[in-house]
């Protein structure tokens, strides 16, 4: 079947969207082999995003864990996270399809900012849907999107977070599909999104391989990334799955895996259908989707990309979890030891360096994706920690 990773993936959407998905698939396929499109994207990644992003030796963190830790610095990409790799690719496709407007959902606001940025660059209209809870905890990003010329629509239905923002964006797309492209922000949604977003993010893994050849003279022992929808992780892993590199994804276990206050979809979920794809899903006995929870808005999602479900079942990738507390501790640790304040999402990956260190040997190299920078989270952290 089309767009499947094993049993996972597919196209579970209202009929109205099927034509647009087909059109998008064709545009993406043609663009993939069009040297003009590729050159344009490459030029933007180099001169607008600032790629390749560095692979930084984390000397003090390395000493702490007894491993050679290398940080893949997506926090240094324009707009401060990996999300821009995807939105530039999709904005170019939007133009190619002759559509004049981009819509997007956003959790942390990073994808919304990246979408608004790409829209500004290409002169596209942009509407961003954002859960009302997230509008509050990521207020700075709301203002950034507005400065960039996007309209931000707070969504108060359901839990007022990323899942509900995605519902709202899908509803808007159904109504405006003829002139609007929905730029999904992660490797989720109906085919071709999981494949397409993975391809746009694979620049992360390709650069890691080539930078490791330069720095290490070979491959690292292990690589780790946080998993919300799973795009920075899939971008890291897709070019690495055929190597011997051990791969780890880290989901948010929020207040702990025992209760319901977590977003550990691959660890605690059951396969089901949400937002167009069959994948692991946090749901109850009735098949109703649960509200996820994480301190990190970008990980606060009850679904996960279907390719991760496939990698989980096949055992190629090991999925771990980190709690709010562990992520906060990791954020402090990395800030103090390396002078780099990671996004709360990325801090989840840093938090599980302990587990990856245990499974590797003295001096082995471990690559950690720092998917974004922490500036957007400072208010939330300050509140949480009772700092005035």
């Amino acid at each position, binding site marked *: 079947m089309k767009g499947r990773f094993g049993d996972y993936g597919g196209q*579970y959407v209202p*009929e109205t969207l*099927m034509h647009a998905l087909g059109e998008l698939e064709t545009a993406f396929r043609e663009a993939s082999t069009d040297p003009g499109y590729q050159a344009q994207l490459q030029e933007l990644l180099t001169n607008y995003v600032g790629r390749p992003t560095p692979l930084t030796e984390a000397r003090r963190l390395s000493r702490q864990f007894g491993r050679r830790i290398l940080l893949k610095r997506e926090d240094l990409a324009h707009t401060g996270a990996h999300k821009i790799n995807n939105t530039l690719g999709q904005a170019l496709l939007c133009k190619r399809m002759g559509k004049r407007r981009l819509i997007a959902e956003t959790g942390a606001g990073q994808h919304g900012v990246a979408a608004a940025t790409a829209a500004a660059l290409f002169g596209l209209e942009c509407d961003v849907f954002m859960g009302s809870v997230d509008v509050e905890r990521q207020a700075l990003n709301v203002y950034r999107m507005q400065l960039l010329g996007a309209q931000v629509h707070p969504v108060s239905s359901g839990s007022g977070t990323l899942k509900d923002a995605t519902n709202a964006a899908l*509803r808007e797309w159904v109504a*405006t599909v003829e002139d609007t492209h929905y730029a999904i922000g992660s490797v989720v949604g109906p085919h071709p999104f999981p494949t397409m977003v993975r391809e746009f993010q694979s620049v992360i893994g390709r650069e890691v391989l080539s930078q490791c050849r330069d720095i290490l003279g070979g491959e690292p022992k292990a690589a780790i990334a946080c998993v919300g929808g799973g795009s920075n992780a899939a971008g890291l892993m897709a070019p690495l799955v055929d190597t011997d590199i051990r791969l780890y994804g880290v989901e948010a276990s929020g207040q702990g895996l025992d209760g319901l206050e977590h977003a550990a979809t691959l660890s605690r979920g059951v396969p089901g259908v949400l937002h167009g794809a069959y994948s692991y899903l946090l749901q109850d006995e009735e098949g109703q989707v649960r509200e996820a929870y994480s301190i990190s808005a970008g990980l606060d999602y009850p679904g996960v990309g279907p390719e991760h479900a496939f990698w989980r079942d096949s055992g190629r990738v090991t999925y771990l979890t980190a709690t709010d507390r562990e992520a906060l501790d990791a954020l402090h640790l990395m800030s103090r030891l390396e002078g780099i304040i990671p996004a709360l999402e990325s801090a989840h990956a840093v938090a599980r360096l302990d587990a990856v260190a245990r499974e590797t040997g003295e001096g082995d190299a471990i690559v950690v994706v720092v998917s974004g920078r922490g500036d957007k989270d400072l208010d939330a952290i300050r509140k949480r920690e009772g700092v005035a």
Partner: protein
Amino acid sequence: MSRLADTLREAGQARRALLMAYLCAGDPSPVQSAQALVAAAEAGADILEIGWPFSDPVADGPVIQAASQRALPHTGRAEVLEVVRQVRAGSQAPIALLGYCNPILRHGLQETVRDLASAGVDALVVADLAFEETAPWREACQAQGMSVVPFIAPTTQGPRLEAIAAAADSFVYAVALLGVTGQRLEQSASILPVVARLRQHTAAPVLAGFGIGDGEQAALWRQRGLDGVIVGSALVQAMVEGGAQAVGAKVRAIRSGLDNLG
């Protein structure tokens, strides 16, 4: 399904417009929703469409989203089946179950389809099931004598339309606008060319739904050559305002709009 096939055939022979009436199971309670559905049948609905509430109804507008939210705390799989049984006990009208994939898949597709069939469901209408994904669903439903109702939309094109026509084993659900459910003042005509092309490949009746909410609008769709209409949000709204009685009155008004065309 023979109930449904009979209803469709008889309406076709009598040149009578079909009316499918939607209400959400469990809104405001399982018993009240079942009573209102029976009242809808008595008032002239030919097919009863029972909604299975879902946490993330992406095809629905605010009115049906709210109905789903009201029903969810007390309406699970068991209650949906119970509503179907009560409606079946009170009416011989064919029943279509409107749901989203996930709750139906949760305890196994085959098992749930079997339970729905034995409760009295004649057809499945699955809002987020694209035609390309329907094969296992059609297989499970055919084994139980149930139909899977395919959709067409204003954007449906090309060879897909022929495949959809070929799979239609009861009626076709024509989404009458670009957007989610909910009554509209304006009745878009954008689905009509798609219906015309579909008709070249199937004799199955075509019912228009989304945005249609009163007798005048229903009559317009009859004049446009559709075989019938599907009314949801307007009935959910009537249910909120005046319960089963208001639902019955609304159905009668739409029925007379459909019938008084001569």
